[in-house]
């Protein structure tokens, strides 16, 4: 069970129609690979964010599968073409079943 997981998003609040905007996300998470052993030689159980989805007005922008070799605190940056005002929804899926959500509004003129 990952502790102190906090999701953060940096997306523009305003854009012009048809513009391609850059979206950055960061989630604090240990991303324990499941390949390491502790001092007693026991395998530390895998605990990672395994999927990330961003939608804009319910249309998928990116749907990413994350694998165990991704570093701690995954930082994802991608681009989205915006045509109308709306809301970005961001969802991170944890191995332990937790789901972390964030959103960010954008007004398009």
């Amino acid at each position, binding site marked *: 069970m990952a502790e*102190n997981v906090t999701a953060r998003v940096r997306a523009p609040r305003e854009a012009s129609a048809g513009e391609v905007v850059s979206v*950055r996300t*960061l989630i*604090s998470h240990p991303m324990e690979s499941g390949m390491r052993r502790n001092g007693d030689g026991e395998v530390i159980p895998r605990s990672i964010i395994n999927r990330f989805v961003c939608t804009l007005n319910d249309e998928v922008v990116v749907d990413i599968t994350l694998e165990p070799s991704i*570093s*701690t*605190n995954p*930082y994802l940056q991608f681009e989205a073409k915006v045509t109308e005002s709306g809301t970005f929804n961001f969802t991170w899926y944890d191995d332990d079943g937790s789901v972390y959500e964030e959103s960010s509004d954008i007004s398009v003129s």
Partner: protein
Amino acid sequence: MNTKSKIATIAVALGMAASSSISHADEDADLVVNGEIEMVVRTAAPAHLEGAVSTIYSGWVFRSDETQAMQADDFDNPGMLFVEKGEQLFNTAMGADGQSCASCHQSSDLTNVRATYPQWDAEHSEVQTVEMQVRECQTEQMGMEEPWGINSGDMLDITAFIASIGRGQIVDVAIDGPAHETWELGREIYYTRFGQLELSCANCHEENYGNRIRADHLSQGQINGFPTYRLKNARLNGVQNRFRGCVRDTRAETYGIGSDEFVALELYVASRGNGLTVEGPSVRN
């Protein structure tokens, strides 16, 4: 063309090809964090370095373009995650009577702390680092029986928070008065060769900064960016832990974190950066 000059020509061509493929740091770039905190990454050396170094450079100057960019924006700086934790700790009750740091201190009153430590503590007649000051508060003001370890995660988080609120302040540690004796000890350690490799701090960081030591681009070893987020271990690193790593790499038995020797060295090395700005938490490789 005789054989000798042919070989020389080939060597020059190879040398040029190799240097163009290495990602060089932009040593002329300026650092402005979040578009608002203007950092001094190069300036005239303080008076006590006369004859040794004329210009002092932040370690940021020697890092690759990508690493430099990470520090220019708090969202991209992974060290800021630990600053957030440090801010929570600052407001967390930990004392015997439920005191937090915030019970006595407004964080806005602490903006000059990172820039002026290590400094002389008259009450205890010793030079204190920020970590020692935190531990003093914990045991003497807050009644904690077990203060945080100097190199513990909590300590790194809170010192990163304290550094972050002082970013942009000019480093100005006092080396005269009662602290001078400790400063002299630190200076002696800086110029003493250690270990099987017989290297002093000065051999790399004064005589050879800007050159490469195998794959590493040597900086001046300035500590204005500590605690530092290192990409190699993906966490914050305290300054004395860094000292320990350096001394270990000379193949010497190192001083301990919190030892009198490292406190003296921290004061001396900090004073070599008088005039640079506080950058902690900086991003380094």
